[in-house]
């Protein structure tokens, strides 16, 4: 069965540190990829998505992610985190044409210390 794995469950960083959150998926066909963020007390928000084209995707709030097809990976990066980035981050994958059936990773809790 298709699955998504996020390597880090809990990450603690100081402000201005660089961030990279790993995401790997198990499906070998064409996929669409997403990163969602959930700030404390708020609902899930889309950070960025990859459907096709340039594998380096830029999202909101300075986040970017790189799709590496050969590694089945879609890692999220940010060069300098802020305290306001404290949140839970979810990677999600959907098979192209498989409307609605997002497969989510377990989530990574990011805590940024001021």
């Amino acid at each position, binding site marked *: 069965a298709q699955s998504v794995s996020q390597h880090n469950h809990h990450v603690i960083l100081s402000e201005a540190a660089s961030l990279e959150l790993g995401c790997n998926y198990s499906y070998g066909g064409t996929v669409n990829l997403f990163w969602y963020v959930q700030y404390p007390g708020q*609902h899930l928000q889309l950070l960025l998505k990859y459907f096709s084209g340039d594998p380096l995707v830029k999202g909101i709030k300075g986040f970017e992610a790189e799709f590496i097809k050969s590694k089945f990976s879609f890692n999220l990066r940010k060069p300098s985190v802020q305290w306001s980035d404290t949140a839970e981050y979810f990677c999600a994958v959907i098979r192209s044409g498989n409307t609605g059936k997002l497969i*989510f990773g*377990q989530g990574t809790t990011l805590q940024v210390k001021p």
Partner: protein
Amino acid sequence: SAVISQKPSRDICQRGTSLTIQCQVDSQVTMMFWYRQQPGQSLTLIATANQGSEATYESGFVIDKFPISRPNLTFSTLTVSNMSPEDSSIYLCSVEGFTYGYTFGSGTRLTVV
């Protein structure tokens, strides 16, 4: 992107009772999706709700336990029936948008006691 209103935002319910969760979208959408997030776990798709037809349930979820209504293109309900403590979760509805991915409601945090 679509704006989704979900209610209630949270509830505490007695075991054996049922709770109906409402999801209202500010635009017409073909499909609406219901997810569950159990404590400490990721989101799992429960079912897909199309207007005018029965919902399609994922493996492990059945209509008797999670009946869904979809009376029009902007509204859906999910009922959690005959609840047990294992049903304590966050329930979310979602809609698709090609250009903006999938949008989620704010979720309903259900605690069954």
